[in-house]
């Protein structure tokens, strides 16, 4: 569907001309690929909505934005965004992004992927990227499951939840993702749910603006494969539940933000610290050692 066609499909409650609807999402979407594949009530689309608005707020040149996804339902995000966007392999969005950013430091690089992709198969890249503190942002959509493959348990599946490979209820411990990435070295870590769209948007804005490795964990309903199997209703039920379940605690100790369906879901901005960024460190050390023989890398007109 072309951008124009897409605009024209709007039914503006009788309003004309319809193409005046200046929807920021439409501008960043690959309209020709709509509608997307996500299920009714899946929260991933909502996160994209927030992402579009965050970009709008940041007012950055979208030509210099790259979005990289792994594989999964969330992994399809890259494919719907009209920026340089890369659908990579399962778990490897972060090292791809690392190469991209390092090879062309002027790019803003955002990794957008799922909990399974980023913390199961991709866990090593996650912690190493956090350690290096290269300036990239990770949007991690946590839906408690491997959506794309049909609802197997993930390192995030809450205790007791049924999943196809945990048919009698989850008995493995879960990752506390903010704690893990903070321990590895992330400089910005926040968690929101798709219920707090405005906060989520702001968190995305902050994370992208932050220099260094930043991560936003977004709790998002997967009605098809997580909620229904656990008799938790439809997407909207979880969204409404998020409202009750979530308790905002900015600056909460990451030790306290592990998720359990019986305890409040702590949300907010947990980490926002300063720590030398990767390319800065590299430039500093190499200049120190090589002096004039070294030209600062990735620096245009004195600015990185």
């Amino acid at each position, binding site marked *: 569907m072309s*951008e124009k066609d*897409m605009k024209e*499909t*709007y*039914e*503006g*409650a*009788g*309003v*004309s*001309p*319809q*193409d*005046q*609807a*200046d*929807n*920021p*999402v*439409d*501008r*960043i*979407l690959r309209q020709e690929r*709509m*509608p*997307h594949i*996500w*299920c*009714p*009530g*899946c*929260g*991933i*689309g*909502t996160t*994209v*909505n*927030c992402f579009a*608005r965050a*970009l*709008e707020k940041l*007012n950055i040149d*979208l030509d210099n934005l790259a979005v990289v996804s792994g594989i999964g339902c969330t992994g399809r995000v890259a494919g719907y965004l*009209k920026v340089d966007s890369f659908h990579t392999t399962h778990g490897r969005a972060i090292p791809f992004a690392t190469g991209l950013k390092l090879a062309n430091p002027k790019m803003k690089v955002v990794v957008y992927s799922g909990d399974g992709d980023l913390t199961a198969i991709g866990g090593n890249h996650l912690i190493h990227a956090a350690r290096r503190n290269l300036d990239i942002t990770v949007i991690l959509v946590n839906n408690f499951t491997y959506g794309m493959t049909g609802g197997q348990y993930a390192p995030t599946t809450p205790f007791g939840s049924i999943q196809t490979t945990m048919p009698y209820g989850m008995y493995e411990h879960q990752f506390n993702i903010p704690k893990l990435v903070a321990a590895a070295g992330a400089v910005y870590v926040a968690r929101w749910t*798709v*219920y707090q*769209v*405005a906060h989520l*948007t702001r968190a995305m804005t902050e994370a992208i603006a932050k220099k260094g490795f930043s991560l936003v964990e977004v709790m998002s309903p997967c009605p098809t494969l997580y909620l229904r199997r656990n008799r938790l209703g*439809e*997407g*909207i039920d979880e*969204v*409404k539940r998020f409202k009750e379940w979530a308790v905002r605690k900015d600056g909460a100790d990451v030790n306290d933000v592990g998720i359990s369906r019986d305890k409040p879901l702590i949300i907010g901005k947990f980490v926002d610290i300063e720590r030398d960024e990767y390319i800065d460190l590299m430039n500093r050390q190499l200049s120190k050692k090589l002096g004039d023989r070294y030209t600062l890398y990735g620096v245009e007109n004195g600015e990185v």
Partner: protein
Amino acid sequence: MTTERKGKGTIFLRKEFCKGCAYCIETCPTHCLEFSEEFNEKGYHFPVLARPEKCTGCDICGMFCPDFAIFGITWKKMDKLQAQKNEGGKVESRS
């Protein structure tokens, strides 16, 4: 095909994109949306602006909609855009 301006704003809807998830309806702060009786092609009920006088054009529905189907806008912004357009100013579609 203009319409009466009952509230401070209105919505746009791409009916065929809607998957009937009720996000918009349940999150609209002024409760001005309701499900249609009608089905769309895919068989979903979609939202309608049942109480247009209460719509503020806040676009909270739009932020929530996972299917990019709905979008709220204030009349004020609409008018501004219209004015821009009338002045020949192109409405940038790539920011």
